[in-house]
C-alpha cells in the first residue's frame, strides 16, 4: 500500500471528523426542524391597512372570500387577506398563533369550544365593547343558544358567522321505493331499520362519519352516545367510557356502519358523506344541518329532513357555530372589527342572498334570517329543523345524567383535542374490524382516565 504517502499530510485527521460532525449536524437539523414551529410573515404598508384572516375551508367561507371586494370597495383603506385552511390544520395553526401570541392573524374562525377556553385565558378579545359602538349590529338578534355559547361572563368573545345543529337527511324517493317512511322525530332503531331496508349493492343505507378526529367522527358519534345515556365523565371526573351506555352506543354505531353504512367508513368525514349523498350512493345521512345547503341535483329535489334521531334522551342534535374571534395579540383591532362587523351583520346575509343566491346564506346565526321571505323559500325543507334543533341544543345538559363539563359533541377542556382524536382513532380501528368495540373502549377509557385525573384534585 503506497497510497498513504500520496495523501496530503493532515488528510486522514482533518477530513473525517469535521465531515462526521457536519453530517451529524445536518441530521440533527432535520429532526430539530420538525420540533420548531414555522415562522410567519406579516404585511401591510402605505395608507391602507391589511388584515389577515384565518378561515376554515367550507362553502360559506368560500362565499365570504368572493364577497371581500364588496367590503373593500366600501372600506377603501382596508385590505383583507383571507387564508383558508382545512379544519384540522386551521385548529393547529390558530392554536399555535394564539398560544404563542405571535399576532400572525387579526381574525380567525373558531367554534364555541375555543371561544370559551381562550376567553378564560385572555387570549381573545372581548368583542362586546366593539359591538356597543355599532348601533345597527343588534346582538339581541343573534340566536340565543349561539350567543350564550360564544359568551364568557356575559360578554361576547366571538361573533357567529354560521351556526349548525345536526339532523337526518334522507332521499324520499329511495325510502318510498322500499315502502319505508321516516317520522319527523325518528328513533335510532327506526333509522337503523330503514337503513337496512334500503341497503343494496348499489346504494348504501346511511352515511355516518368514521374519519378519526374529534371534529369529524366524534361529532355524530357523541350525539349517539348522549342519547343512549352515555357521558365522558361523571360529576367527579371519573371517566365513563367503559360504561354499558358507551358500549351500547358505539356497538350500535359500528354495527350500523358495517351492515348498512358506506364502504371505507373509517375514511369518511363530512365532505366524503356529502359527495356520497349528492351522487346518490347513500339513501340517508346524519350530519350537520349545513349539509343541506350544499345539495345539488336529485339530492336537492328529493330530500326529506328529520330531527336528530334519539334513543333515551330527546333532542340529541349538536350545536356548533363557526365564529370570528380576534386574538388579543392583534395590532389592528379596530380594522379587524370593521371586517368582523360587516361579515356577521344582517346586511351581509342580504348581500349573500342577492349576489350569490338565497340558498348560500350562512344559516343559524340570526333570528332575522329566518324571517326573510326569500330565505324561507330557498330553505323550505330544513330551515325549521335547523332553528328548532339549535333552540333545543343545551350545551350544559348534553346527556341523561349530569356532567361536570360543557359541550354536546365535545368536552370543553383543553385536553379534549388530543383525547378526542385518540378515542376516535381507536373507534375507527373497531369500524374497520381491527379490534372489537370493547377493546377500543378499554383503550379509550385509559386515555380518558389520564385526563380526568387532572381535574380531580
Amino acid at each position, binding site marked *: 500500500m503506497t497510497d498513504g504517502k500520496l495523501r496530503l499530510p493532515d488528510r486522514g485527521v482533518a477530513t473525517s471528523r469535521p465531515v462526521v460532525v457536519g453530517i451529524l*449536524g*445536518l441530521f440533527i437539523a432535520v429532526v430539530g426542524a420538525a420540533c*420548531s414551529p414555522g415562522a410567519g410573515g406579516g404585511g401591510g404598508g402605505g395608507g391602507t391597512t391589511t388584515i389577515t384572516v384565518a378561515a376554515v375551508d367550507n362553502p360559506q367561507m368560500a362565499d365570504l372570500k368572493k364577497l371581500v371586494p364588496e367590503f373593500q370597495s366600501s372600506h377603501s383603506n382596508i385590505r383583507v387577506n383571507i387564508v383558508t385552511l382545512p379544519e384540522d390544520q386551521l385548529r393547529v395553526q390558530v392554536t399555535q398563533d394564539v398560544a404563542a401570541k405571535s399576532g400572525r392573524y387579526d381574525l380567525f374562525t373558531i367554534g364555541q369550544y375555543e371561544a370559551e377556553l381562550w376567553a378564560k385565558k385572555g387570549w381573545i378579545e372581548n368583542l362586546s365593547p366593539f359591538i356597543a359602538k355599532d348601533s345597527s349590529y343588534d346582538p339581541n338578534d343573534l340566536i340565543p343558544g349561539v350567543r350564550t355559547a360564544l359568551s364568557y361572563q356575559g360578554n361576547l368573545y366571538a361573533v357567529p358567522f354560521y351556526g349548525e345543529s345536526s339532523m337526518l337527511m334522507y332521499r324520499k324517493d329511495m325510502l318510498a321505493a322500499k315502502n319505508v317512511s321516516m317520522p319527523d322525530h325518528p328513533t335510532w332503531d327506526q333509522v337503523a331499520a330503514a337503513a337496512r331496508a334500503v341497503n343494496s349493492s348499489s346504494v348504501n343505507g346511511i352515511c355516518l362519519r368514521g374519519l378519526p378526529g374529534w371534529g369529524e367522527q366524534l361529532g355524530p358519534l357523541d350525539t349517539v352516545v348522549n342519547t343512549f345515556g352515555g357521558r365522558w365523565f361523571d360529576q367527579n371526573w371519573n371517566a365513563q367510557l367503559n360504561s354499558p351506555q358507551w358500549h351500547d352506543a358505539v356497538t350500535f354505531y359500528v354495527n350500523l356502519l358495517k351492515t348498512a353504512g358506506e364502504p371505507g367508513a373509517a375514511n369518511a368525514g363530512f365532505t366524503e358523506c356529502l359527495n356520497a349523498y349528492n351522487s346518490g350512493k347513500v339513501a340517508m345521512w346524519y350530519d350537520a344541518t349545513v349539509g343541506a345547503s350544499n345539495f345539488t341535483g336529485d339530492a336537492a329535489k328529493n330530500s326529506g329532513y328529520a330531527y336528530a334521531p334519539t334513543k333515551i334522551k330527546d333532542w340529541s342534535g349538536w350545536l356548533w357555530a363557526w365564529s370570528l374571534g380576534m386574538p388579543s395579540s392583534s395590532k389592528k383591532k379596530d380594522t379587524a372589527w370593521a371586517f368582523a362587523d360587516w361579515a356577521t351583520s344582517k346586511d351581509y346575509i342580504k348581500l349573500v342572498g342577492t349576489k350569490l343566491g338565497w340558498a348560500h346564506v350562512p344559516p343559524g346565526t340570526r333570528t332575522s334570517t329566518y324571517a326573510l321571505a326569500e330565505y324561507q323559500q330557498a330553505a323550505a325543507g330544513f330551515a325549521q329543523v335547523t332553528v328548532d334543533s339549535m333552540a333545543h341544543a343545551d350545551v350544559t345538559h348534553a346527556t341523561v345524567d349530569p356532567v361536570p363539563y360543557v359541550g354536546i359533541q365535545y368536552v370543553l377542556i383543553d385536553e379534549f383535542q388530543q383525547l378526542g382524536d385518540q378515542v376516535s382513532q381507536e373507534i375507527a380501528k373497531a369500524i374497520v374490524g381491527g379490534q372489537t368495540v370493547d377493546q377500543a373502549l378499554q383503550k379509550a377509557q385509559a386515555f380518558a382516565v389520564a385526563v380526568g385525573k387532572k381535574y380531580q384534585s
Partner: protein
Amino acid sequence: MKNTSEFLPRSVVRSGGARRSAASVVSREAWALRLPLLPAFVYVFLVTQIPFVLTVYYSFFSWNLLKEGSFQFAGLDNYATLLTNESIRTAVLNTVILTLFVIAISVVIGLAVAMLLNSEIFGKGLMRTLMIAPFLIMPTAGALIWKDTLLNPLFGLLPYLLTPLGLSRVDWVNQFPMATVVAVEVWRWTPFMMLIILAGLQSQNPEILEAARVDGANALQSFRRITLPLVRPFIELGALLGSLFVVQTYDSIFMLTYGGPGEDTTNIPFLLYLVAFQGYSIGQASAIGVVAVIITIIVATFALRTLFSIFQVEARR
C-alpha cells in the same frame, strides 16, 4: 481512525524537534483553507445547533402551550414518561417494523432492477428514468395518489382491477394500514436502492465474469460468488442511508392513515407531531425529539462508517 498515523509523513511522527514548527505551518495552511468556509459553518451551526439545544432545554420542562404557567422545571419527568407510556412503545415498535420491512423489500427489488438495468436490454435509458420517477415525486402527492386514485374502495384502480378476484370492496388503507404504508414507502425507496446498487454493479469488471463463465460457473454461482460480494458494501450503504430516512417517515403516514386506525401506523415522528401539535405538550414532544436524535445518530454512525470503508476500498484499488 486507529491507523491515522499511517497517513502522516514519517518526519512529523518521529522527529520531535522539527515537529512544532512543521505543525504550526500545517495548521496555518489549514486555517487558510478553512477560513472561507467559516461563514457557512457558522450559519449551519446556528440554524442546526440552536434549535437542538433549545429542544434539549425544553425537554426538561413540563411545558404545555394550552396551560398558562405550565413552564416549570420538571427534571427527567418527560423522559420517565417515555419509558412508561404505552403509546411510545407502540410507536417505537411501529418505527422498527416499518423501517425493517421497507429497507429489506426495497433492497431486494432494487437489486433485481439494478441487475436488469445493468444488462444490455432495449430501452435501458428510458427504463432507468422511469424507474427513478417515484423517488422524484413529492411524498405527499405520491401518498395522495396512492390513497385516492389507486386504493380508494369506491373508485380506486386497484379494487377495480381486483374485482374478478372478489376483492373489489377491500378498504386497503384501513384494513391493512401498515402493509399499505410499507408498500408506498417501498415504491418510493426502491429507486434509491437501485441507483446505489447500480453504481456498484457498473464498477464491476466484466472480464472477471467472463473468466468465471469460462471456468464453468453458471449465472447463479457467479452472482453469488462474484457480484454479490462486490455490491455488498453498496447494499449496506443503501440500507443504512435509507433507514436514516425511513425512520423519519412522516408525510406518507400523515396523508395515508394519519397514524391510524388506532395507533397501528403511528411511528416516532408522527407521535412527535401528535404530541406537539395536537396535545401541545412541547416538553414531552422535545423529549421524544431528543431520543429520536440519539437513535438517529447511532444509525448514522454506522452509515458513515460504511461510507468511509467504501471510499477507502475505492481509493486502494
